[in-house]
């Protein structure tokens, strides 16, 4: 435990703590740009520079470990001038379009410049070359705004294991981007948007769908409905000054109604529907593996398909789907065939709901609000038009919704709490927890367990503790006892599940399964760290503290519900009765299930 002084304040920190973190502990703020807590501390930007007694030069505090007896000064003339010079040099290259940049409200470079009192840019040099990459449905890159802090590179490589981004060229000509500065769609990119989520400036942002949504809202011939993913209600408040983890479900609903949507609905509704389909699919796969295949022959000739292999992977997260299609194309059969809740919603809204209100699918416009950029890509996949037209028309991120609310002059904090519309706005607590890592698994277990045994899931308060929290890979198992007669083949079986979030963790699980080191029946994967609550479309900047606060809010949301199991959702039951028939039935198959494609790695 080294003891040191920072600006004459004594502080004691654990071995390996950086000077930056030690200063935070001493209550001293050191400005940073490239530093990203728990992810990157490489001293690239030099903004966090400090003076250390005995050191020949100024030192980057984020990458300097605190040592015994160190005397650090963070506020000397030399430090202030050096920091200001560093930021001036960055600004001299940065072609920011600040007045119109979509980061102008929360740009970290702008904030640091203001904090350090930069008033002039005394280095009138060349600007970074501008190349706008709009090749993907989800993301926009603008190289002229990039300050080469490398946060996106670190996240893309180390956290997600995708490695679409890397520093290309060298020196002043460095471009952070895909191979040979090509477009993103020419390399493996899963469009998760974690790069944009950590970008301190406006160099990587979501592709704008706000204009398309306004256009639909302004069109009197369109019936415009909106669905909101469960993760939005735990984070949207942050865009209006609420602390992380504030639940704003009611205000969000009111805001959407005031924006002019004809139906304010919930992706939670189709999250419950997903559980009905995916839970049944899991049981079918288990039955096929344990019973049918032992009998020999195909016991499911009458079904619409033969159940796929085990382990079954969840399929709600489009970045994860694309990752698997690229890196493990031989395992697409292991993915649940269920569409994501977003896509199920689009298909149901433009068929079942359209019939109910007497509209044609093409007269309905489905907008989504998602914590995710990959959802913009997912809705444009060619398979996703089972209603006869594109099932989901536009996808707004949480940040985009906040921008629309501000554009409309709505005072969010003054809104009353309102309820979502029926029937596609009715949901259970099991759907809420789709928002966080472990949640889809828990929701599926709550229902599947009860189908098999007729009894509630035997975990306290229905929470499967071992798969909650921010550990990268989590496991749980439960021995099935008291199975109903039709599920007697599962009696005594040990159901093994795993949960991974962040794609590099997903890779660990897959490799363990492929090598035979681990065996599971069901594996939940969410693309982003923490799950959807940490998605690429959420308010910036998301740290682990934000993730934990949002997860806490989601569990509260779940626990405040009367109904907490998907199979108890009355609107979903009605949908089956009036329209779909039964889970995995013919109509479900056409509207709610999908196929995957094998892709290449380079």
């Amino acid at each position, binding site marked *: 435990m080294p003891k040191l002084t920072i600006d004459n304040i004594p502080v004691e920190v654990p071995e390996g703590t950086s000077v930056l973190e030690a200063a935070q502990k001493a209550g001293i703020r050191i400005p940073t740009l490239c530093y990203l807590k728990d992810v990157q501390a490489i001293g690239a930007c030099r903004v966090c520079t400090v003076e250390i007694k005995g050191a020949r030069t100024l030192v980057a505090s984020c990458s300097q470990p605190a040592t015994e007896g160190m005397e650090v000064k963070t506020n000397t003339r030399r430090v202030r001038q050096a920091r200001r010079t560093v930021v001036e040099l960055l600004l001299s290259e940065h072609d920011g379009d600040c007045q119109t940049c979509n980061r102008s409200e929360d740009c970290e470079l702008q904030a640091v410049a203001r904090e350090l009192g930069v008033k002039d840019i005394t280095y009138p040099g060349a600007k970074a070359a501008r190349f706008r990459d709009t090749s993907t449905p989800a993301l926009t890159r603008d190289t002229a705004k990039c300050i080469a802090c490398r946060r996106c590179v670190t996240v893309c*490589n180390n956290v997600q294991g*995708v*490695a*679409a*981004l*890397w*520093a*290309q*060229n*060298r020196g002043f000509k460095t471009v952070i*981007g*895909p*191979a*040979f500065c090509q477009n993103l769609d020419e*390399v*493996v990119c899963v469009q998760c948007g974690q790069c944009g989520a950590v970008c301190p400036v406006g160099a990587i942002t979501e592709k704008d769908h706000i204009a398309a949504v306004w256009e639909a809202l302004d069109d009197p011939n369109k019936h415009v409905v909106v669905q909101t993913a469960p993760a939005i209600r735990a984070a949207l408040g942050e865009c209006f000054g609420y602390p992380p983890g504030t639940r704003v479900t009611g205000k969000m609903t009111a805001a959407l109604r005031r924006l002019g949507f004809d139906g304010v609905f919930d992706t939670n509704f189709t999250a419950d529907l997903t559980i009905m389909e995916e839970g049944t699919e899991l049981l079918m796969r288990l039955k096929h593996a344990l019973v049918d295949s032992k009998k020999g022959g195909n016991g499911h000739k009458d079904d619409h398909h033969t159940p796929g292999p085990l382990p079954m992977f969840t399929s709600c997260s489009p970045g994860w789907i694309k990752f698997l299609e690229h890196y493990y194309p031989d395992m697409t059969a292991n993915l649940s065939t269920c569409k994501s809740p977003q896509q199920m919603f689009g298909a149901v809204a433009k068929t079942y709901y359209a019939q109910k209100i007497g509209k044609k699918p093409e007269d309905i416009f489905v907008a989504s609000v998602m914590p995710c950029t990959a959802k913009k890509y997912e809705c444009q996949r060619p398979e996703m038009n089972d209603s006869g037209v594109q099932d989901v028309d536009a996808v707004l991120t949480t940040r985009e919704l906040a921008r629309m609310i501000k554009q409309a002059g709505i005072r969010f904090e003054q809104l009353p709490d309102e309820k979502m519309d029926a029937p596609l706005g009715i949901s259970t607590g099991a759907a809420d927890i789709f928002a966080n890592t472990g949640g889809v698994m828990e929701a599926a277990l709550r229902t599947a367990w009860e189908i098999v045994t007729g009894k509630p899931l035997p975990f306290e308060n229905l929470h499967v503790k071992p798969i909650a929290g921010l550990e990268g890979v989590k496991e749980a198992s439960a021995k099935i006892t008291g199975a109903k007669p039709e599920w007697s083949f599962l009696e005594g079986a040990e159901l093994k599940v795993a949960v991974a979030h962040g794609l590099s963790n997903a890779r660990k699980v897959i490799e363990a399964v492929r090598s035979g080191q681990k065996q599971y029946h069901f594996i939940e994967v969410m693309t982003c760290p923490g799950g959807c609550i940490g998605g690429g479309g959420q308010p910036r900047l998301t740290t682990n503290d934000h993730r934990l606060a949002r997860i806490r809010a989601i569990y509260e949301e779940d626990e405040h519900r009367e109904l907490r199991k998907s199979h108890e959702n009355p609107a979903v039951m009605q949908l089956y009765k009036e329209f779909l028939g039964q889970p995995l039935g013919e109509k479900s198959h056409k509207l709610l299930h999908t196929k995957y494609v094998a892709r290449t*790695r*380079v």
Partner: protein
Amino acid sequence: MSEDRKVGCTCSCGEEVSEQELLARLDGVLAEYRDKPGALIPVLQMAQGIFGYLPEVALKRIALGLNKSYSEVAGVVSFYSFFSTVPRGKHLVRVCLGTACYVRGGKRVLDTLKQKLGIDVGETTPDRQFTLEVARCFGACGLAPAIMIDDDVHHRVKPNKIELVLGPYRNGEAAKAERKVPA
């Protein structure tokens, strides 16, 4: 890619080898280096030896073979000026623009070479004989300005004598530079 497609092998061995054959040689290198840490740069150097430059097909093969992303491979290739992703001529002409060579007329030597060869820096003559590049310091500062053609260093080059330097290479008289090409 077709089996019989011939590519001009620029490793100065004089033979025409099919792309298929060159890729097979690359696979041999990859098999040897697959599990070695820090393999990327040596493999890229050898691949450039095999192909004469680093074509996309080779780079993608390397990315797969070494289990690295194509963006990372491209990042390393574009960082080092030694690597080239465009075909090079039979002879590589490098003009030193380090400080000593620069003050003693390296720039004029370069301009003359551009004019004589009819190409800009980084380009290759249409007959695929010469590629022109600039470099920083061959360690021949006392004999500046210096240029390198293949592995030969030429000292105190005068712009009006450039043709004398280039001549032997044009006629194939200069000793063929040896390059290490793994069998």
